[in-house]
C-alpha cells in the first residue's frame, strides 16, 4: 500500500470536485474492494475522498412509481428493504447471493457497481495485465481463465465484472444518476455504464474523473417471476461462474410470453441481449443462440456457454410451471 492523503467530503458536489482536482484521487465509500486492492498494490491512489457522510443513503419513491436508491445505501439494507423484496425480487435475491453478511453491511450501491474484476492476473502484480498496467499485455488470454469472459472480450482483456447486483439492475433497466465536478448531473442507463474492454480495459465505465454516482433509479415494478440463479464453485462466498437474472411472464398458453435475461460471469459487464428476448416464443435454444452469439471461449471456460444455455432453459421451464 502506498501512502495516501485523505479527506472527508461534505456534499456530493464537493466530493466530485475534490476528486477531479487531484489526479490519482479516488472516492471511498464501503472500501470493501478498494482497500483490499490498495493493500495488494493493485490500486495506488494518492488521495482518498471519503463520501460516507454526504447523505445519499435513502431509498425513496420516484414520481413515475419506481424507486431511487441512494448511492450509499448499503447492500444489506437494500436487500432487506420491504419494497425491494416485494417488487424487485430479482434484485433482493442477487444482493443476497453476493459476498457475505459482513461485506454486505459495509458495501454500498454505487461501490458495488464500480467494483473491479476478480481476474487472477489482475490480482497478481507480477503478471502482465492491461487493466492494471495498460500496455503490459493480458496474461489471462493464454492463462488459467476459468473465471474469464466469453462474450464481448477483446485481445487486450477477458476480464469479467464480478457484481451480482449489477446483473439484476441490468435486467430491470435501472438508471444511474451522477453528479459531475462542475455541479451538473446526468442519468446513464445501466446498459451504458460499463464499457466493454476493447483496447482500453482500464477504462471500465463511462464515468469521468470526479463524476460521482448519486443514485440508482429503478423503473416501476415489473410484473412476473423474478429469478436470480447464481452458479459458483461453492455454496456461498464465491463470485459467479455464471449467473442469470431473469424476469419472466407466462402467457395464457402456459408458455413464457415475455422474458428479460441478464447474465453475470460472462462478460466485462452484465450481459443482456434485448433482441434475443423478442424471440422468447421460439424457445430457450433460439434465445440462447442469440444471447451467446459470438461467444469466444478458452479451454478453461468452454463450459460457460453451455451452463448459460442450461440456466436460461431452466428459468423458462420454471416460469412455465408457475
Amino acid at each position: 500500500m502506498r501512502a495516501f492523503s485523505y479527506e472527508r467530503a461534505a456534499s456530493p458536489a464537493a466530493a466530485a470536485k475534490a476528486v477531479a482536482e487531484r489526479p490519482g484521487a479516488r472516492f471511498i465509500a464501503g472500501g470493501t474492494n478498494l482497500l483490499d486492492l490498495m493493500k495488494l498494490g493493485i490500486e495506488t491512489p494518492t488521495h482518498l475522498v471519503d463520501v460516507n457522510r454526504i447523505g445519499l443513503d435513502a431509498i425513496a419513491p420516484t414520481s413515475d412509481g419506481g424507486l431511487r436508491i441512494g448511492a450509499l445505501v448499503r447492500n444489506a439494507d437494500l436487500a432487506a428493504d420491504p419494497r425491494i423484496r416485494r417488487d424487485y425480487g430479482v434484485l433482493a435475491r442477487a444482493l443476497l447471493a453476493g459476498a457475505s453478511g459482513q461485506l454486505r453491511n459495509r458495501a454500498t450501491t454505487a461501490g458495488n457497481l464500480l467494483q473491479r474484476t476478480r481476474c487472477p492476473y489482475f490480482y497478481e502484480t507480477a503478471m502482465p495485465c492491461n487493466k492494471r498496467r495498460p500496455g503490459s499485455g493480458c496474461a489471462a488470454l493464454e492463462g488459467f481463465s476459468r473465471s474469464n469472459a466469453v462474450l464481448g472480450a477483446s485481445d487486450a482483456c477477458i476480464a469479467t465484472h464480478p457484481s451480482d447486483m449489477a446483473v439484476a439492475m441490468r435486467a430491470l433497466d435501472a438508471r444511474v444518476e451522477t453528479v459531475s465536478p462542475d455541479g451538473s448531473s446526468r442519468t446513464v442507463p445501466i446498459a451504458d455504464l460499463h464499457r466493454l474492454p476493447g483496447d482500453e480495459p482500464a477504462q471500465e465505465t463511462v464515468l469521468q474523473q470526479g463524476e460521482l454516482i448519486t443514485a440508482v433509479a429503478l423503473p416501476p415494478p415489473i410484473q412476473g417471476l423474478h429469478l436470480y440463479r447464481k452458479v459458483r464453485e461453492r455454496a456461498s462466498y464465491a463470485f459467479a461462474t455464471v449467473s442469470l437474472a431473469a424476469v419472466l411472464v407466462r402467457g395464457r398458453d402456459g408458455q413464457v410470453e415475455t422474458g428479460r435475461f441478464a447474465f453475470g460471469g460472462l462478460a466485462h459487464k452484465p450481459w443482456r441481449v434485448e433482441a434475443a428476448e423478442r424471440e422468447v416464443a421460439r424457445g430457450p435454444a433460439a434465445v440462447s443462440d442469440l444471447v451467446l452469439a459470438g461467444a469466444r471461449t478458452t479451454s478453461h471456460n468452454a463450459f460457460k456457454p453451455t451452463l448459460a444455455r442450461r440456466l436460461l432453459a431452466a428459468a423458462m421451464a420454471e416460469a412455465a410451471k408457475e
Partner: protein
Amino acid sequence: MIGRAVSRVDGPLKVTGGARYAYERQDFGRAAVGFILGASVAKGRIVRLDTAAAERAPGVLHVMTHWNAPAQGPRDGSLPDQFGRPWPVLQGERVSWFGQPVALVVAETFEQARSAAALIDAAYETEAGAFDLASHAHLAYAPRTAAVGLATDSVLGDLDAAMASADVTIDQNYTTPAHFAQPMEPQSCLAHWVGDDLHVRPSAQGVAGARMALARTIRIPRERVHVDTAFVGGGFGSKLRVHEEAVFAALAARVIARAVKVAQTRRQVFTITGRRPETIQRVRLAASRDGRLTGVGHDVNMQGTSREEFVEQTATVLRSLYAAPNRLTRHRVTDLDVGLGEAVRGPGELPGLLAVESAMDELAHELGLDPIELRILNEPERDPERNVPFSERRLVECMREGAARFGWSARAARPGSRREGDELIGIGMAAAIRMHFQGATRAAVHMGRDGRVVVRSDMTDIGTGTYTILAQVAADALGVPLARVTVELARSDLPPSPGSGGSWGASNSSNAVHRACESLKEKVFGSSNASGFGRADLTSVVSRRFPDGVEGEGSIVGMADDPNYRNFSQHTYGASFAEVAVNTVTGEVRLRRMLGVFAAGRIINSKTTRSQLLGGMIWGVSSALHEAAHVDPRYGNVVNGDLAEYVVPVHADIPAALEAVLLDGIDDKANPLGMKGVGELGVCGTGAAVANAVFNATGVRVRDFPITMDKLLAALPPAF
C-alpha cells in the same frame, strides 16, 4: 475423566483474546516489523535489486538482501531430522520458485515496511522453467525413501501377471492438484536477542524442530535458542518446519539489536510455505469374478523440487489395506521449479485414498458387488506386506456400523437412478486406514504440597486440545480434580517431545504424562505398595511428607525402539459415507449428509476428538469437490493464491447432518493408554466417499480431482 467430553481448558483465553499468538505477543517491548518481498519470477537470477528508495522511506530500519544477509547454514536435505533442517534465506542471486523471498524490509510499523518493500526496484533475468507435472512426468525418478523413512517401493508376487490373468481389472489414472494447508494464523515469528541468546516466539507445531532449525540456520548452539510457542492457530503440517518468517525475524533482530516480528501475508502462505505435491496416480486392481483381489498396484508420480526432496507417502495407503497375493506400490518424483513439498493434513492418505478408494468403487461397480461386501471379501488376516499381525483391525466393524447408521441398504445400485426434482441423488462410501506413529517423548508432572499439579512438556497445542487432554490424563492418574491441574507447554526449557503432527502428539504426550504420574505415585508410595493406597490419599501424603512437592518424570520411546512396532502392524481405521445431490441443470454438487465411523484406540476427550474428525471430514469433502492450487504452466505462480479463489468449503457447503462416531476401544499393543491419533484420520477416505457418491448419483466417474461442475455437465440430461 478419560474419555469425557471436557471443554477446552484454554477456551476462555481463546475467546477473550487472552491467548496471544506469536505476532501479537509483546514479550520484548515494541517490536520492529519485517515485511518479505518475493520474487516476481519463478526461475532465473536477480540482475538488479535497488533498495535505495526503500532505505530512505519513512520508518525503515533495515533492508536485507542477499548482498548483506548474515551467513547461514546451507540447506541440507540429507539431515535425518527433517523438521530441524536449516532453512537459509537470501542465498544469492538465483531465483528457484515464484515468490521466493528476495528481500526483507524492517520498519517501525507493518504499513511502513510493506510500503517501502514496494519501492524496491528488482529486475530478473528469467529462464524457462518446468512447472506442470503432466508434461514433465517422464522425467520422474525413484527417491531413496518416501516420507517418514517408508519404503519407496513394495513388491510382492507379480502384478502384471495377475492383471493379465484376472477375470476383472481396473487400470486407471487419477490426478490430484497441489494443496496448501492455510491455517487461520499464518506463519509468523517474533524474535529478540539477549546477548548471544536468541529468544523466538514462532508459530510452530514442534519446539524441538524449530529450535534445531534456527540453531543450524543462524549457526549458534541449540542451547542458545529459546522457543516459546504457547498458542498456535492451526498447523496441518505447514508449521512442522519454520520458514523464512522465523529466520528473517531472528537475523534482523540481531542486525538492528531490537525485537523484530515477521508474518507471511495470506498470499505469501501460497508461495513461501510448502505445498502438498500434485500427483498422477495409476491404480491397478485385479480380481476374480467373485470379488477376490488377486493383485493391487499403486504407482504415484508427484511433483518435487531439486532443492529439497519431499516424498509424500501416497503409495503406502494400499500396503496394509486389502489382501491380495500380487502387489506393487511405487513412489516417483518429478522435479519442477515450484515451491517445496511439505506435509499437508493427511499426507499420503488424502491423495492416495482418493485414488485407491475410487478405484475400489469402480471395481465393485464392474463386479456388480456391493462396495462394502467387496472390501469385506478382501479383508486381510495379517498385514499383507509385512506379514505380521495387526495390533487391532476394526475396518469391517467401522464399515458395518456406518452402513447401519447411514442407511446404506437404501443405496440404489444402479448409478443415476435416483432423481428428486432437479437433483440426482447418490450415496457412496470409502474405507480409511492410517499408520499410527510414535515418537520419543518426555514429560514431567509435579504435585505441590497444596495438591496442585503442574504438567510440563514442550509438546504444542495447535488448536487440537493438548492443554485439555494432558490435564485429563494427569487428573485421572493422580485422582485430582481437573481444576487442580495446570499444563505448561511449548517452551524449549520443558521436557522434549516431537510436537504435534502426524497424528502422534496426543498419544506420545498422554503416555509420557501418564507414566510421569505413575512415577510420581511411586515416589510417594514406594513401588511395592503403590496400589495399596487409595487415590484420595495421594494429596494428603504429599502435603504431609513432601514439603517441596514431588516430581515424576515419564517417557515413551520412538517407534524404532518399540518392539510392538516390529511385531505388529499399527493403524487407525475408518469408514465414511456421503450423500450428494447433483444439480441436473448445472452440475453443481452439494453434500447432503455425511457420516464417519472411526476406530482409533482409546479416546481421551470425546469432544476435542470429534471436533478434529469433523474438521478432517470437511477437508475430505474439500479435496473431492473444491480444493486445488492452479499453477500457471508459463509463469510457475499459483494463480488462485488467496482464500477468495482457492476454494475450500464454507458453512453453506457443509450440512448439519455431518457426524463422526468413534468406536469404543483400547489398542493394548499401541502404548500403555491404548490410544492412537485422529488428526489425519478424518481426511482419510472421506474425499473418495464423496466422489463415489457423485458416481452413484450421475454415473459419471471423474478421476481428475476436484470434481467440479464442468466435468459433469456434458453427461447431464439435456436441458432442451
